[in-house]
């Protein structure tokens, strides 16, 4: 009985220590307000580039959609990673969000393929 209790106590201690280390690790990645402003400016520049790409007639039309999708993806992951702090957050939070995102991308890609959306 006492051995069980000791084992349980050791497991709890280890679990607490791991949680504490993970928690400390998360708090060591705090971003300063100045860096948040820089990230927001980067997002604004990317938005301006997106609009410019659609307005500039000399922009190669074959590259327009891939360029727009790339800039959209960069903006998306910058906001999720830094403003929502997911980059330095716990793996379980990442799993919770990215499983939904990946599920949506796979599911609706299949749906669009079923309706021949990607066929010219």
């Amino acid at each position, binding site marked *: 009985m006492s051995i069980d209790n000791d084992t349980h106590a050791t497991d709890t201690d280890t*679990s*607490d220590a*791991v*949680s*504490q280390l*993970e*928690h*400390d690790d998360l*708090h060591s990645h*705090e971003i300063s*307000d100045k860096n*948040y*402003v820089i*990230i*927001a400016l980067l*997002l*604004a520049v990317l*938005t*301006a580039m*997106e*609009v410019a*790409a*659609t*307005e500039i007639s000399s922009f190669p039309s074959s590259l*327009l*959609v891939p360029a*727009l*999708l790339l*800039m*959209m993806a960069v*903006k*998306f992951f910058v*906001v*999720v990673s830094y*403003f*929502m702090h997911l980059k330095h957050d*716990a793996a*379980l*939070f990442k799993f*919770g*969000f*990215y*499983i*939904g*995102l990946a*599920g*949506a*991308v796979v*599911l*609706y890609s299949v*749906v*669009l393929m079923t*309706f021949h*959306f990607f066929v010219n």
Partner: protein
Amino acid sequence: MSDTTTEPRATPEPEAAIPPGYDDGQDHIGLAHHTTTGLSNTKLAMWLFLGSECLLFGGLISTYMLYRNRQGDAIGPDQLWDIPFTSATSFILLMSSLTMVLAVSAAKRKDERGTRLWLTVTALLGGLFLAGQVYEFTVFYREGLGYTTSLFSSSFYTLTGFHGVHVAVGIIMLLSLVGMLAKGRIVGDKAETVEMVGLYWHFVDVVWIVIFTLVYLIPA
């Protein structure tokens, strides 16, 4: 039999007061949460909710992509979009994400005045975005694009309308939070409460990032 009834009840130790799997609602600066995962259950629930929201908006965006060329003889996206105007409203929403993250940062520093200020600015920017969307809908309607005009119009209004409702809910959450902070009605970790509203607000922003590119910028 009588032994069991007369045995004195053991008083719970302070550590046992918080059952495993439950947050105690206290401010844990530098301490892990008292849950089975060592993480905040509230935050985990919010991330799972946002993951499920990806599926909701994924469905609406896919439906729009399928129907965006199905306007028949009615007015289509190429005759309607006012890209400079929509770019301006997108910029406003993007900047509201900055003010939101500054509110979270202020809350973590326990700067309550700064938190309320940035939350109010975020709500105002959100209101400005929403006003822009209402104006845009009004212009489209006057130009002949009703909700049932075509498959394109139905899917467009449903997608952007759902996003607008999310923005409106976010504004209500922000203003409620400002009021509750002012009256000291937030129980437990204030910074975490602000962060939860922040996660929702940033998600509304990332959804618009996708809508802006796929709906407005990529040619039909």
